[in-house]
């Protein structure tokens, strides 16, 4: 069903376990031993951050809303579970994914505009031939088996924020955590509502209204602390003993009770929370330079920019 996650192709075909994902990627590399050896790449999580920055740059130039950006990010992530990255021009894949996502999310842009913006952003790596972008779109759709409807956590967040009477700051923080999760494998590992619940949990334990709104990507240390606190509260919810120390925790208590009564997979929330923490830790060590250089190197060397 188009609007029902449980019956969607997303749940049936595009949710993996970590092991399944690792296997898929290993297979892709094994099919291209020479390429892998010739063109070493930084760790996948750093590559994902680099991709995300490039998507954001393109999205900003086009004035694309976050929902369409998120869909494009999902397309790219799905695509690279099927195709070895060194066989592609990532800049072209990024532009094709944004082009397609904008059509799917009902905010289309002309192919020529995409090509013009691609040329501006990545002049040395982007062909002015629109048929290259068209071809890449074709390939993208094919690799996704035409399954292009994406269920995102934003909708769960919107419907849940009133239940927990989230403040504007808390909502904004939860929203930005969801934005950030597209830089990780989380959207391939967890159902969108699990991600939304995790983001809400983190946003209320971080209490941006008292500590000042911090960028979710700000301090990994802070995030980690908050997240561990969150994990404790979730396991309390699991064992059924609430136990708030102060009135300030009222929201957390409410959340615990709600979670305990819901059918939500608490294990998955715990797991997802850990993923978020480790992402913010990884992000602290991120360095754009090696990603950019190594990607650009294989694109140029293999003539993928032509």
């Amino acid at each position, binding site marked *: 069903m188009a609007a029902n996650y449980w019956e969607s192709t997303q749940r049936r075909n595009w949710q993996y376990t970590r092991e399944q994902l690792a296997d898929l990627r290993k297979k892709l590399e094994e099919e291209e031993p020479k390429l892998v050896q010739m063109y070493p790449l930084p760790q996948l999580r750093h590559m994902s951050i680099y991709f995300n920055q490039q998507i954001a740059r393109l999205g900003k130039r086009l004035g694309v809303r976050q929902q369409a950006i998120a869909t494009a990010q999902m397309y790219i992530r799905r695509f690279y579970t099927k195709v070895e990255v060194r066989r592609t021009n990532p800049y072209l894949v990024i532009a094709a994914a944004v082009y397609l996502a904008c059509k799917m999310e009902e905010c289309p842009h002309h192919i020529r505009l995409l090509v013009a913006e691609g040329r501006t952003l990545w002049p040395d790596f982007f062909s002015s031939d629109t048929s290259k972008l*068209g071809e890449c779109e074709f390939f993208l759709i094919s690799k996704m088996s035409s399954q292009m409807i994406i269920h995102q956590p934003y909708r769960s967040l919107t419907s849940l924020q009133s239940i927990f009477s989230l403040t504007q700051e808390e909502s904004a923080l939860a929203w930005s955590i969801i934005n950030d999760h597209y830089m990780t494998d989380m959207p391939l590992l967890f159902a969108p509502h699990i991600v939304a619940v995790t983001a809400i949990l983190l946003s209320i334990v971080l209490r941006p209204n008292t500590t000042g709104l911090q960028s979710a990507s700000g301090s990994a240390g802070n995030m980690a602390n908050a997240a561990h606190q969150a994990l404790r509260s979730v396991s309390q919810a699991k064992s059924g003993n609430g136990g708030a120390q102060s009135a300030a925790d009222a929201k957390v208590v409410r959340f615990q009770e709600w979670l305990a009564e819901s059918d939500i997979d608490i294990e998955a929330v715990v797991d997802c929370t850990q993923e978020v923490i480790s992402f913010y830790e990884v992000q602290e060590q991120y360095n754009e330079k090696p990603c950019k250089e190594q990607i650009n190197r294989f694109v140029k060397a293999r003539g993928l920019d032509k």
Partner: protein
Amino acid sequence: MYPTRRNPPFYNPTDRGIAPNVGYQSKVRGIDRYNVIGFISSGTYGRVYKAVSQYSEPGEFAIKKFKPDKEGEQIQYTGISQSAVREMALCSELSHPNIIRLQEIILEDKCIFMVFEYAEHDLLQIIHHHTQPTRHPIPASAIKSIMFQLLNGCQYLHSSWVLHRDLKPANIMVTSSGSVRIGDLGLARLFNKPLLSMFSGDKVVVTIWYRAPELLLGSRHYTPAIDLWAIGCIFAELLSLRPIFKGEEAKMDSKKAVPFQRNQMQKIVEIMGMPTRERWPLLSTMPENAQLSTLSAKPGSSLEKWYYGTVNSGIGGQGGISSLGAEGYKLLSGLLEYDPEKRLTAQQALVHPFFSTGEKVSNNCFEGVKLEYPHRRVSQDDNDIRTGSLPGTKRSGLPDDSRPSKRMKE
């Protein structure tokens, strides 16, 4: 725990993808797994062919080939149209007995082929058959069954947050076993998370004769109710064998401004009476509201008169449909309600007494029907799905009774 991931049949793990200067091409041509029997119809999107499987796959198929853009003689990748993207995405998710079933999508040779189950009939053809050689009504039991199945499919779409936006007799398929299948989701879209107002995407939706009054009056926030208006029009057409509001489409002017469809609105008010604020409280907020004063209509609705005149005339004599009775009128007027907020929803229409009074509704609309409907015309002009590009061939089945063009350019 996880269902096995089934690769689509056209997927070939050895293809080399977008290596430099090599087009995307699978080794096994998916389309070669089908035997094309002939050509069915063409439209703005491309062409539809009838086919059978080369191998053991039973059944017949309708293959919709999207038109590739050409630059000179060379077919180019020019980006996939938004309507193809929508139809591919939605058909991949949807699954319901009253929605046309997608078998697979094949992408190769720069073309997109959507392979659907084949349906022998469609409502346009069935309605047309009942005007030949003289007008004779569609049996009451068939009308009931068609309406129920149509509403059932529509209810499924709406519960999945999908608006069809182009319901009309030509898009409603009927299988040889009498099962109704809603087809052509090229204009359909999700309405659960519109990024832009629904208006900004495609300025004009729904073939004009089936277009709801709020759309004609320039509404920017339209809803599933537009599909129910169209179903009301289809219901009327099943009864009378003619479009109930057969207006003439005003063309876009040179500035591409969308004109007010005066003639179409006039046809509606002639039967439904002038809409009033009492009947439709938000009427005055409609952008084209002022235009209504330029139309002429008698006060009050004459739909009841139209209905009884139609069902009692027995059009052509034998086999009358007066058995549809008062509930038929109530359902019709509930669907053709001016105010979209008061118009019946698909859910409400399904539990309407119309379907629970009289004989039981069959899920085979041909049950007990003596008539034999002609098979879909399949022409042999163009069997070449691979290159096929005969210019301007129209739908081969029916004479074109000046039905308005399907849709304006998006």
